[in-house]
């Protein structure tokens, strides 16, 4: 029992691997948020007028929300100090020159950053066949494979480029799934976002490779506010990967992203995330506040959106990747592993909104809490009045590693149609004693047995990640579970 606790302490205290920062010249605007800042960001981004209008509209809305602290979102099972929005710089770009024509122009330090992060931007990735869009602080620095994809009519570029070159597409879809009025952080993002990724898959095209974006917050005192917009036209398919890291900083950093997905008739979008933002130290000092709005709409008949996530980072995670099942026969999926340790707090889950007929959704959530962390699943399943024959299956399993952490489950089931079949199951337990005994009887040490069993607990979800990503996810999880020794 004692060695058990000891190991769990080690787990809880193990280090953050990506906690360094890169010494690169960056263009960071002064802290604070007001209309001038919005205009400044907009001018730095060379926004067209409509985009500036969008930003201002969003900002005015956010101002109204921010003026009344009663309107701050506080319903989540999270405790954190009030964020002072005037203490954040809302724009930071690496280098004074915001965009690069080729990798050669990129600051070599930056390339090193990506390499250290395990993101081989060049040869290895060519072999691996992954197209990468990397967003550091607020600006997209490199997009590989653009040309190969362009031959198929696939657009995969930074949000800034998309506004410039595909303005109509962006204008049509941006904010259609997550309007700026959706919530506090969505409003903030719509006002100050500086870059992100845009992805468009034309009708009938199966994207031949995984598209991937890596996000990193580098500059101190900055927030990151990126947007991702994915449009999958009729009969298309894309698998999209997203990874995040941030350096170790003593102060909290704010990340408020928005992801929108639109899946038309028979289209399928698979969105996978490995979130490893800096979680703060064991006393809760520093760490990223991760307030993210991710939502997809299954617009067309037979469309499918699938979210898979491994959440190990951030001091605070507030994130509910959701699916609006509007098209008949559409499918929504949410598969999640959330691991918290130290003083981390995660409140994550999904919303499945069934509107069309014969829609179905699956939710599998695995939460693991260690140290003094709190890990909550919060999920809504709503079957609307007209959603005939809707199906939902939800399974939430929580595991506690240690007796000073919390694991919570808050499902909301709102059923307004009698033909619905909705099933929710949840369990909370610790690592099985009989399983531990079995492993140890085979000579496996207590620590290794815990790791083995916890990985097994998550296996079902990790197996849903694309191959290469799954390997990375397993490694990350193993590191997270590893004691600080060695």
């Amino acid at each position, binding site marked *: 029992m004692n060695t058990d606790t000891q190991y769990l302490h080690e787990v809880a205290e193990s280090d953050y691997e990506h906690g360094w920062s890169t010494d690169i010249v960056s263009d960071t605007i002064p802290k604070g948020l007001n209309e001038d800042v919005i205009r400044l960001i907009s001018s730095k981004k060379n926004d067209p007028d409509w985009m500036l209008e969008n930003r201002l509209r969003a900002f005015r809305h956010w101002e109204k929300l921010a003026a009344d602290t009663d309107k701050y979102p506080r319903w989540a099972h999270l405790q954190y100090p009030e964020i002072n929005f005037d203490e954040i710089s809302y724009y930071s770009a690496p280098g004074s020159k915001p965009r690069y024509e080729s990798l050669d122009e990129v600051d070599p330090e930056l390339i090193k950053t990506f390499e250290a992060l395990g993101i081989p931007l060049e040869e290895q990735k060519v072999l691996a066949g992954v197209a990468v869009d990397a967003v550091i602080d607020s600006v997209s620095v490199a997009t590989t494979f653009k040309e190969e994809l362009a031959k198929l009519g696939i657009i995969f570029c930074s949000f800034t480029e998309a506004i410039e070159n595909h303005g109509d597409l962006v204008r049509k879809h941006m904010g259609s799934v997550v309007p700026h009025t959706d919530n506090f952080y969505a409003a903030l993002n719509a006002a100050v976002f500086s870059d992100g990724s845009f992805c468009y898959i034309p009708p009938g095209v199966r994207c031949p490779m995984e598209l991937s974006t890596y996000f990193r917050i580098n500059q101190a005192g900055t927030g990151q506010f990126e947007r991702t917009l994915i449009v999958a036209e009729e009969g298309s398919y894309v698998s999209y990967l997203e990874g995040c890291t941030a350096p170790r900083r003593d102060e909290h950093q704010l990340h408020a992203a928005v992801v929108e997905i639109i899946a038309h008739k028979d289209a399928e979008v698979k969105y996978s995330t490995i979130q490893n933002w800096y979680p703060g130290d064991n006393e809760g000092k520093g760490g990223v506040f991760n307030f993210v709005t991710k939502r997809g709409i299954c617009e067309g008949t037979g469309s499918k959106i699938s979210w898979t996530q491994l959440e190990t980072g951030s001091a605070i995670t507030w994130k509910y990747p959701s699916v609006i099942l509007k098209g008949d026969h559409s499918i929504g999926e949410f598969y999640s592993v959330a691991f918290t340790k130290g003083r981390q707090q995660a409140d994550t889950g999904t919303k499945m909104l069934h509107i069309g007929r014969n829609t179905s959704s699956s939710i599998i959530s695995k939460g693991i809490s260690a140290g003094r962390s709190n890990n909550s699943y919060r999920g809504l399943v709503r079957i609307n009045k007209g959603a005939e024959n809707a199906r939902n299956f939800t399974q939430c399993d929580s595991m506690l590693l240690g007796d000073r952490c919390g694991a919570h489950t808050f499902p909301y089931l709102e059923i307004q149609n009698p033909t619905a079949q909705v099933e929710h199951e949840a369990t909370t337990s610790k690592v099985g004693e009989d399983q531990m005994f079995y492993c140890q009887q085979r000579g496996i040490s207590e620590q290794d047995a815990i790791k083995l*069993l916890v990985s*097994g607990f998550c296996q*079902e979800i990790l197996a849903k990640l694309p191959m290469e990503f799954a390997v990375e996810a397993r490694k990350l999880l193993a590191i997270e579970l590893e004691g600080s020794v060695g």
Partner: protein
Amino acid sequence: MKSILEIRGLKASVEDMPILRGIDLTVNAGEVHAIMGPNGSGKSTLASVLAGNEDYEVDGGTVEYLGKDLLEMDVDERAREGVFLAFQYPIELPGVSTMNFLKQAVNSVREHRGQKPLGAAELLRLAKEKAALIELDTRLKQRSVNQGFSGGEKKRNEIFQLAMLEPTLAILDETDSGLDIDALRSVANGVNLLRTQERGFLIITHYQRLLNYIVPDFVHVIAGGRIVRSGDKELALELEKRGYDWVQEELAA
């Protein structure tokens, strides 16, 4: 002959209920001992105590294993020292792949013995060889440990692990229970192939049936937490004929 296990006056209880009331038993290298007895006599408790299951409280006595105090060791330490328990009810480990599990187990044991850890390829080769020994469906290796296995498959998997880990003392806890005749035969076959001059076996069983296939050197009958009779394989046959009541009646008389 080299002694592997020396049990002297072993007493153990579960939730304050005494189960073992003084067991004395010596197992030498190369010997196969069968432990028989009626339900509730304490035979499975003996297996659990030897393996180090913390649900059981040791109240007295000593267990010497290769000259060391076995009761002082942790569960995994015992295993690395070469004590293997084939579980009566093997545990399912959802999501834990059999090969990964084996790799960790085999290399933990090897490391302890000062051997080089096996790489993936070597391990696979070894696994293939050992699986053939007990006619284990190789597809099972690709699944999670014991998950969705039939009763027979689970038991074969136990013997397969025995073969992989090459223990000095192998304890089989009612490995024959719930097996059909074909599975019984192949499990027994596997065990016979694993009998060596260096290894000792403690085979716990309720029925004589298994002993038709694995011929023991010694048979002990446990009743009421004590070994009440010891003999050779003839004792097992006599038990088969006369039932456990015979031993208990004789004891009472």
